[in-house]
């Protein structure tokens, strides 16, 4: 009885799960924020933001770790338009920066102010990340190695971006680059000159590598960054290219009794632009050779493209025939051989010719009718 009464009560209890039905959006505008800020004694950086609540009130905020909080301040928000608030975040570093070293972040954002109401209420917040690098008290660098693909016998320009994230300046900075072949034997070495790098600064150290005598292919490279008696190795790889364009794919089947589009997909393996490239296509059939020349194009380095020509297969028996594709580029030439299927004329191809015929017939009819009209007019008596 008690159970039944409980259920009866439950049946009349209402549960509301209703969400808000008003627009819920937020935007935050700002100018450029650098990738990171290096924390230096007495350094000061300000960033201005405009928050848009799209009709709702917004509240600016920032979030920072406790040891960074003391460096950050938020200005009074200024109303600059309907539901628009402008505010500035200022980061001031003291003489003695005691925050934990490394890359740190401060989140600066705005949230919309909503009435919690009933049900499941969605709400929006938007924020930007301001990265701060707190310098290490000892010597400390961060470095990135970038290589360059070159052609045979060219000089490669390698770069190592070095950032001094330590408080002390680096007095002697040098980079060597060792080149290894596929069996991991060191075959060449190049080095930079001597450099120095102040605390908190970033520089790119260039190393030139003369590839004379090195064959085309992919090589491993290790850059060693030497800084005031310490060393940091960085790995990379690069490619020495050669002027070669190869056929990747081509039209495998065409139709007899019509002019066919013939595509040749080619790949430029040369690490440079090719100003002029075309292909000659020759399909050897028992009755005659079908030939076509594609348009002349230019190709970007290490890229692919399609060259298009048109082959007239009128009067050719269907079957499989050998095809020769000759590529002409700059002063070089390469040849690709394969086969092509010549198929019986398709219904679609026949339909194409039919429509062309109808078009011509209609045109002739219009001309004849015009002439007849003129003649009738001339012969008609007053």
């Amino acid at each position, binding site marked *: 009885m008690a159970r039944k009464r409980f*259920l*009866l009560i*439950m*049946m*009349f*209890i*209402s*549960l*509301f*799960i*209703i*969400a*808000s*039905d*008003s*627009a*819920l*959006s*937020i*935007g*935050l*505008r*700002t*100018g*450029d*924020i650098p990738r990171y800020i290096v924390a230096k004694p007495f350094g000061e950086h300000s960033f201005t933001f405009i928050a*848009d609540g*799209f009709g709702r009130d917004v509240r600016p905020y920032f979030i920072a770790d406790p040891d960074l909080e003391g460096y950050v301040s938020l200005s009074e928000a200024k109303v600059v338009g309907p539901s628009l608030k402008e505010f500035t975040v200022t980061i001031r570093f003291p003489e003695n920066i005691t925050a934990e070293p490394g890359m740190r972040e401060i*989140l600066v*954002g705005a*949230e919309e102010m*909503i009435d*919690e*109401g*009933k*049900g*499941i*209420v*969605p*709400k*929006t*917040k*938007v*924020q*930007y*990340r301001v990265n701060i690098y707190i310098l290490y008290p000892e010597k400390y660098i961060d470095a990135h190695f970038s290589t360059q693909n070159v052609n045979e016998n060219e000089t490669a320009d390698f770069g190592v971006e070095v950032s001094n994230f330590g408080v002390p300046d680096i007095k002697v900075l040098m980079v060597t680059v060792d080149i290894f072949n596929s069996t991991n034997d060191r075959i060449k070495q190049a080095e930079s000159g001597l450099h120095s790098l102040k605390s908190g600064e970033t520089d790119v150290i260039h190393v030139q590598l003369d590839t004379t005598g090195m064959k085309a292919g992919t090589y491993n490279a290790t850059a060693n960054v030497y800084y005031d008696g310490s060393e940091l190795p960085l790995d990379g790889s690069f490619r020495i290219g050669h002027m070669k364009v190869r056929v990747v794919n081509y039209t495998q089947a065409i139709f007899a009794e019509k002019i066919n589009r013939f595509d040749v997909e080619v790949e430029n393996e040369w690490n440079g632009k090719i100003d002029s490239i075309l292909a000659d296509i020759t399909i050897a059939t028992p009755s005659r050779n079908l030939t076509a020349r594609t348009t002349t194009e230019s190709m970007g380095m290490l890229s692919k493209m399609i060259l298009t020509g048109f082959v007239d297969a009128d009067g050719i028996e269907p079957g499989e025939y050998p095809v020769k594709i000759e590529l002409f580029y700059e002063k070089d030439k390469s040849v690709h051989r394969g086969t092509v299927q010549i198929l019986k004329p398709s219904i679609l191809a026949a339909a194409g010719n039919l429509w062309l015929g109808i078009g011509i017939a209609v045109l002739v009819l219009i001309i004849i009718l015009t002439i007849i009209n*003129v003649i009738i*007019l*001339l012969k*008609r*008596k*007053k």
Partner: protein
Amino acid sequence: MADISNKTLAVLLVLTIAVSLGGTVISLGKLRGLGTGVTGFDVLNAYGNISVYVESQAAINFTTNATNFGTGTVHESCTSCTMNTSWTGGASNQATCCVGFSGADNGLVLENTGNRNVTVDLQSNKNAAQFIGGTNPLFKINVTEGESGSCDNTTSGPGSGLGATFNNTWANVPTADTEVCDRFNIDAGNDELNISISVTIPENSQTGSLQATITATATAI
């Protein structure tokens, strides 16, 4: 005034056609010669500086934000009532155990309306026990791409960057900021996330108007 003869008319007709055709041919020839198109301005000798500065704007919008399950009770023969807003289905005993609730067709739809890609975190201010109460209540979400390609992975490029916990999977609503999309794109046509909601209301749940806030936080990247 004397009538014009048919012969004269025929000559005039032929002349008109000839002038019309000739004019068309000459006009087309001249247009081709212009090369840069028809314009009243000497574009070859015009110089100017255009300076444009585009501000960065991170912005999101709940384009669909009404999730209305209505008002109701748990059927006397059931211990709980489970409903969800998923377009793709999910556990539900709405037909047999939910009395009076109208059911909701749609969940929340979040759109990136700014010009910056963002990461998206979700957080609820209440868990199931705090929101619904009773014995074994459930309050879950399920996140999917509303438009294909809306959420990428910043480390491995295009592809689903949806957080594994909620990627087309029902999981308890997070009560701390939890990433649900690694890179929410700005491209029109690829900038929508669907957030489906599921609730299980036990027979001894809290009663009256229940409230929870789900906050979507967009962080510019």
